[in-house]
């Protein structure tokens, strides 16, 4: 049982010392002081959640930039998802469009899927989406993608494997 868990005080010091330049760094990247402020908060929420790791962190700046950078990427991913979702919704005939409550649930489910699929190589992702969304048999996917059925099976296995190993 390691008892070296950092206390919230350590996180507080880290915050006091680094939030200023981190905000500047994020503002330059995001071109928005509000988004930057949000992500500074999110960064430290993560630091707090993973504070067991802190004692082994030698370069606090590099550590914070790594976390913040990931959050920036995720923010862009989420925004492009929302945008594509809005477009798909706008194109729906009104009587068929889901209610606002349903839309929210659908968007959250899509976000979770998108997160999981995001790290996959293009081929793996395409094969998995064709199987899930179009319910296509592997042989059809192979024909569509111009690869062998064996390759499609490998892609599907890899996709599931990555999903299982992803942090919940």
């Amino acid at each position, binding site marked *: 049982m390691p008892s070296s868990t950092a206390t919230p005080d350590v996180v507080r010091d880290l915050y006091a010392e680094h939030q200023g330049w981190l905000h500047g760094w994020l503002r330059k990247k995001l071109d928005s002081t509000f988004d930057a402020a949000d992500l500074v908060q999110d960064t430290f929420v993560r630091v707090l959640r993973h504070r067991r790791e802190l004692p082994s962190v030698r370069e606090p700046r590099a550590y914070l930039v790594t976390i913040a950078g990931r959050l920036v990427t995720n923010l862009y991913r989420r925004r*492009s998802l929302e945008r594509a*979702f809005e*477009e798909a919704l706008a194109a729906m005939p009104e009587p*068929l469009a889901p209610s606002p409550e349903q839309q929210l649930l659908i968007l959250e489910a899509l976000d979770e899927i998108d997160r999981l699929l995001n790290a996959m190589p293009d081929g793996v992702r395409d094969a998995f989406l064709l199987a899930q969304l179009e319910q296509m048999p592997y042989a059809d996917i192979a024909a569509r993608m111009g690869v062998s059925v064996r390759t499609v099976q490998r892609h599907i*296995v890899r996709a599931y494997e990555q999903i299982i190993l992803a942090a919940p």
Partner: protein
Amino acid sequence: MTQAAEHALGADPIDRRIAREAALWLMRMGEGGSDAAMQAACADWRARSQMHERAWQRAQRINTLFGQVPADLARGALARPNAGRRGALKALALLIAAGPLGWAGWRSAREQGWLAEYRTAAGERRAITLADGTRVHLNTGSAVDVSYRDWAEGGATLVQLRAGEIYVEALAACTVRTRQGSVAARAAHFNVRQEAEQCLVDVSQGEVTLRPAYAELDTAPPRRLSAPARAPARARLDAQGVHALGAAGAGASDAAAPDWLRGVLQARDLRLDAFVAELARYRPGVLRCDPEVAHLRLSGTFQLDNIDGILQALPALLPVQVRTRTAWWVVVGPREQSA
């Protein structure tokens, strides 16, 4: 990081070997035709340890998630090109460029109907037989609701066309409702195609009565307009009312059931943009025509069950190139000058 997160949640990270085995099981089950023996073997595998079951549940989670999203919305959202995967800069460029890509959504307008009673996916065709013997054929990406008693229509079978195109072989009183109006028939064969702003009706046998949607709201008796009785005749329903278009598809055969019913697409000196738009109806994803080659024309008979084959053959027919960006993102554009 991942491991730390798992520790924080009080769960051990899943062993790679177990993750791989679970993935193999899911792949096999997804192959279809999993029999009882295989399911039992899979259940045994899951029961080996808590971690086995946990690996299985995690993968099942994604299947559950996919079950919660309508395919067309998911397709539009998840199959967006370069979905932020090439890092922040590329994603930012995508955000800025996202405007002109607005047509990513137009496809889904046609493929609607995940709430409807009967529907077909892109590329799928099916026929249903109603209680009175009337046959309704659904073309690609179509959706209908059927109800059998509509007293306002005098007890006719009521077919609500929510999206796409249907061919009806009515044996008794039958009314098809569209967004722009309704088509009523006693015993007639007719095709109804719902487009964005209008609806096209082709009568190939018998006679139908067309009523624009606004007439249904009037307190005054609805205006009735009959399509010419000789087959085939075409009319258009739109916000302005009913417009007779005369004989459809000049030179079409006598018993002119639509070509799509036989799984073919006839092009007669058809503009490429119209041709590609037609093909796009039969293929999931985005298929579009670059304006630079939109004016090209082609003729021929094409098999609707092999859209990818048609796309592959296009460069042999016309000076075009077919670019596939993802499985769902295909553009027919001008041929690139080499060197």
